[in-house]
């Protein structure tokens, strides 16, 4: 994921995304989602870029950057700072836990060398905890980027992580 985003890159990305979803207040979350998806996170500098394009005073829409920050900081799938190229999201909810989650998260920590919430020095991996992913009958489960892994045992963890460059 990009760490250095030039001003021009960001402006043109925001321009495109706002164009796709509309310059309205109710498009804020899809707009933030797209930016998060493309860049891997939402840079602080993106917020005024979005706000500028959604100011519609004649229609009564007055947005402050804080409104955008408020939304960007609330949702768990967004990140406000750069994270690893590959993101592990481990389900720590009750069903996965009961089906053997404790052993799997330990294996993930051992294999990645990371504590939950941490990103590796080389920016390759982030290990994050997440709430129920909705695949509970095949718990324990976790996501790596957009790939979901279910029925995971600690023994499978090294092989799964090895698939990612």
């Amino acid at each position, binding site marked *: 994921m990009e760490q250095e985003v030039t001003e021009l890159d960001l402006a043109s990305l925001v321009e495109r995304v706002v164009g796709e979803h509309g310059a*309205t*207040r*109710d*498009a*804020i*979350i*899809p707009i*933030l*989602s797209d930016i*998060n998806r493309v860049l891997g996170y939402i840079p602080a500098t993106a917020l005024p870029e979005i706000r500028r394009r959604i100011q519609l005073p004649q229609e009564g829409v007055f947005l402050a950057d804080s*409104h955008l920050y*408020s*939304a960007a900081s*609330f*949702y*768990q*799938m*967004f990140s406000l700072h750069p994270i690893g190229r590959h993101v592990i999201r481990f389900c*720590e*909810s*009750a*069903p996965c*836990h*009961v*089906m053997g989650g*404790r052993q799997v998260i330990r294996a993930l920590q051992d294999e990645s060398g990371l504590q939950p919430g941490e990103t590796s020095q080389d920016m390759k991996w982030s290990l994050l905890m*997440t*709430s*129920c*992913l*909705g*695949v*509970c*009958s*095949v*718990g324990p489960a976790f996501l790596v980027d*957009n790939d979901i892994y*279910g*029925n995971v045992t600690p023994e499978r963890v090294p092989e799964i992580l090895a698939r990612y460059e």
Partner: protein
Amino acid sequence: MKVIRSMVLVSVDDASLARGAQDVFRAFLDEIDEFGLSDQVAVTTIREAGIHADTPLVIVYPDAAVYGPVTVADVHTIVEEHLYKGNIVPSLLEMMHAPAPEFGWMRGRRGALPVQTRIVLERAGIINPESIEDYILNDGFLALGKALTQMRPADVIAEVDKSGLQGRGGAGFPTGQKWRFVASTPGSPKYVICNADESEPGTFKDRLVLEGDPFSIIEAMTIAGYAINAQEGYIYIRGEYPLAYRRIENAIRQAAARGLLGDRIFGTDFSFHIHIHAGAGSYICGEETALIESLEGKRGMPRARPPYPTTYGLFGKPTVVNNVETLANVPPILRNGAVWFREIGSPKSAGTKVYTILGNVNFTGAIEVPMGITLREVIDIYAKGMKNDKQLKLVQTGGSSGTIVPASLQDVPLDFESFRNAGVSLGSGALLVCDEDTCVVDLAKVILRFFRNECCGKCTPCRIGTLRLYEIMSQISEGSASLAELDLMLKISEAMSEVSNCGLGQTASIALRDFMKYFRQEIETHIVDHVCPVGVCPVSERAPVLAPVP
């Protein structure tokens, strides 16, 4: 156009492959071709068939016959007898428990699996979810056509009302009544919202419908729009379900292209457009007013109620918010009639429910059965018993916001009345089965951590309460709490359930209160003896706390 009438599924997990599943698969393709059935019978593979000793498995739909173990030599027989002539081959079926005679009241398919009554999940997993032709061939859009051309909006509401359909998201509000409120509330425009934010831990029933039968939701929302005189609908799908999003998006596009959605549907004056919106990771956005706030581009913080969405909803207009499973029941009710629906289930809880079975059992997954099944039936018949023959200790019913049911209460029927009658919540229908190796302190900690993470922060009792409860439970698991803190937890829990702004705060401590009611001794042992009977809490590593010096 190919009209597939049967589907053959061959298991190709590692165990099956090691026993020749690849050859079995190829043999099916050859034999089906030999018998000239290639245009009628589809063959495909499944990776996760669950835990079976008799792999490779071959499942034939729609008969739901499960054969196993299947060798190449068996394939000719199965194709000739079952697929060509229509006779299931009993000698090749996988050994399964037969349903007990007292469950004959459950209607279901032919075949060897325990009987289910699939209404909501009738097509999921059977038809191609990306094909509108498949949907139409399986009674798709019949209900909408009937509603638009033969019924007035008031008739539609009356039929849904008469059916006794209640909300399947967890609250159980009568659907017909909700529609009637909004239809008769002055204000325009009105909106229909489908709540597809399914985030209650243990729940994935809505995902099955969104991914497996997306057109049914499109049809149901359009019917709802017609009933309440709304021209626009929104479907809010949680961000963690990208496949569901894509399939719904595709369904909207295909339906619109055929005049079954959009302007002048079925050539009538009624127009309805559906917008799709993805969430971004937030359990609280499943709460209907938080969902509306999120749709409006803000933090998902629940509003003060009243007013309810039926009077002040999306953009301040009268809005119907319905769960996916609730909506999926609407087309069948219109097609088959309210009386048919009422006859399924129990007197006060009509219809079926999709229950999800999770935890320390042999078979996990989703089942759809008439309302009122008991935990014992779920565990013995559908889950095929406890894994490794362990003892059942407790079940959490209804998700992480649900009640704890000790083994002694496993004969309570699970429906909308079970909470009032026996303190057993139905909730979303998630059933987390825990065996003797589950420590209640450890499980309570995991549940409370979930609510601390998901609390939106708006109201004090929940924001502070969820944090404190989690902290205290962590201390208990580490052996540094005192008995006085148990009473403190109960006080906090009482405050949260009475004063919190929304359902999250009100239900976050239900499990804790039940643990205290049924398993208090186990919790106290952690505190007083510094022992975790099951042996998972780090409590045993701490030295006993010395008494304070006077």
